[in-house]
């Protein structure tokens, strides 16, 4: 049980700045996921917390105590490595017992703890095997078991599921979440997979180029991304971005997407967006709010496009088309798969639009005005969608 604090944390490898000025407070018992594209400094941050990488500047505090130079062994933290890092010359039992042995626990305690945890993770039958005689999934469990046995202040995970197949990954994700519920230990979890981040995290820390881009709950991150990068990173399919401009007209504000398409901005947003009239902006809109088909309300903004591909994902389908030279995706009914190659109307729900200042790449903040929350895409569907997009 511990709080973790980073204060202006920096890490440089020679000229390379791997982590830059990260400030973050992780509450006791919180499940925080560091997510971001490859090379953004997630692992480095985690390794600094574990004490495996000396820090260049800033502070790391555990339970309020500065631990900048404390040896890893004295931090009482457990880490699960992407490679699992099981000791090949030891049996599963010995692997799991290692940490307690180092702590000087007596045999009976070690035996009880190892067997309890093995029971909990369903690996009791494997205790006498060597790691090389285990499957990938079993190794993963043993690696987690080794961390759990010690009952540490915090668990660190570095992409623990990336070597598993999709089904096993989904299963382990659920198990990790359950374990956290049960143990209530602080967890810092690194992944580059935004779905893992969305499903596991109490709070997501999205990193880019060594800096923290946004820290928020998964839903807040999804609904109110602060930058274009966050908006594009979180959620599947990827958010649509479209260059646009704002102009006054029709008694309000119009969002011009092409010479022939200009859509009225909802009144609730017009007041905020007014400042951007005439400036280069981008429209960000998720496929969920871009729907193929005529709107129920004929006044809703819509425009005609030529659908190129329609991919059913089960309960619904994704349609892909090019508009003004930009590839976009829209939601449609699975019955509409026959529309591929035909033109259709696409209705856009501007109540859920994001306006991006093209100069700063920041999303223009809209106060939470109580409009209906965005529809949450169920995970399975999101994953299927993600595959479809690739």
């Amino acid at each position, binding site marked *: 049980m511990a709080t973790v604090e980073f204060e202006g944390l920096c890490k440089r490898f020679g000229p390379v700045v791997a982590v830059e000025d990260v400030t973050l407070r992780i509450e006791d018992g919180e499940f925080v996921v560091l997510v971001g594209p490859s090379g953004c400094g997630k692992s480095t941050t985690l390794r600094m917390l*574990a*004490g*495996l990488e000396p820090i260049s500047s800033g502070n790391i505090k555990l339970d309020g105590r500065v631990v900048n130079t404390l*040896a*890893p*062994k004295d*931090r009482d*933290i*457990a*880490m699960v*490595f992407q*490679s699992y*890092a099981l*000791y*090949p*010359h030891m049996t599963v039992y010995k692997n799991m017992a*290692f*940490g307690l042995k*180092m*702590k000087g626990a007596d045999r009976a305690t070690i035996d009880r703890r190892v067997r309890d945890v093995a029971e909990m993770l369903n690996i009791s039958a494997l205790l006498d095997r060597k790691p090389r005689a285990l499957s990938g999934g079993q190794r993963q469990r043993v690696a987690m078991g*080794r961390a759990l046995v*010690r009952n540490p202040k915090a668990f*660190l995970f570095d992409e623990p599921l990336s070597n598993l197949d999709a089904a096993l990954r989904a299963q382990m994700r659920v198990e990790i979440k359950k374990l956290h519920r049960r143990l209530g230990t602080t967890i810092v979890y690194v992944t580059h997979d935004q779905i893992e981040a969305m499903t596991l995290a109490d709070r997501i820390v999205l990193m880019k180029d060594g800096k923290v881009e946004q820290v928020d709950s998964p839903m807040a991150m999804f609904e109110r991304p602060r930058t274009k990068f966050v908006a594009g990173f979180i959620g599947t399919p990827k958010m649509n971005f479209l260059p646009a401009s704002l102009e006054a007209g029709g008694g309000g504000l119009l969002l011009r997407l092409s010479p022939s398409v200009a859509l009225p901005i909802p009144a609730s947003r017009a007041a905020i967006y007014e400042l951007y009239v005439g400036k280069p902006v981008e429209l960000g809109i998720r496929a969920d709010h871009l729907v193929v088909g005529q709107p129920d309300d004929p006044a809703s903004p819509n425009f005609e496009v030529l659908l190129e591909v329609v991919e059913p994902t089960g309960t619904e389908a994704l349609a892909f088309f090019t508009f003004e030279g930009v590839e976009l995706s829209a939601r449609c009914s699975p019955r509409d798969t026959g529309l591929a190659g035909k033109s259709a109307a696409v209705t856009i729900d501007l109540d859920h639009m994001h306006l991006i200042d093209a100069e700063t790449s920041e999303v223009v903040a809209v106060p939470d005005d109580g409009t209906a929350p965005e529809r949450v895409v169920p995970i399975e569907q999101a994953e299927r969608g993600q595959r479809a997009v690739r």
Partner: protein
Amino acid sequence: MSLDYRMILARLLVYGAALVLVTLCGFPLVWMVLTSIKPDQEILSAAPTFWTANPHLGAFERLFETTNFPTYFANSLIVAGSATVLTVFIGALAAYGITRFRFRGRELVAGTMLFTYMFAPIMIVVPFYIVMRNLGLVNSHLGLILSYTTFSLPFSMWLLRSFFQSIPIDLEEAAMVDGASRPQAVIRVILPMAFPGLIAVSIFTFIVAWNDYLFARVLIGSDSLKTLPVGIQDLYESTVTDWGMVMAAGVMITLPALVFFIAVQRYLVAGWGAGAVKG
């Protein structure tokens, strides 16, 4: 049918070739052992005999009772044993350092290690003697131990380096997060995994030190400090060469190396394999 025949022929050829090799290497050894237990008349008779009707251990008795053989033997054990321990210890530390820490000149050290073997020992023995004399280590076991260590260290480092390189750094880090200090992590995780390498290095060093004649000849003067190869050479200096005794000495020299080798050779084989693939 013909296939069977061909396979048998191939087998025969392989085994035949192996037999020739074994005979070539093994015959002198067998002859040495046999000679050491033959009576003197048989050794010196004009028509050599293979088996002897009356084996006896007289030559061994003479070796142990009339010569300084036991002293030479003890000296050899001390020198070769110490050189081995020292080489393995320093070699492991160096290889660990080179594979785990970043420092200026690391690649240079790693790359030039084996250059030291470009010089034949005979070329460096005189400079070596001068160095040792300046250090006051001529005619001492320490001098000899240091020489052998110097000589086997580069190869040992090179071999251990590839072993250490093949051990993922994650393992060590996992151990350290699990509550081990760096030395503990090395002792409990890294060394057990590098064990075949350590064995290979110790065999190499032991045999180099055990068999060396040149350095022992040049660096050691007093009889009480001589190692086996030099000591035995001096058995020839008596007016009449006691061939039985020389052969007995030969047997006694070969035995420890052989026993050591057989005891650990399976690790050695595993060691070469791993080192070769991962290096």
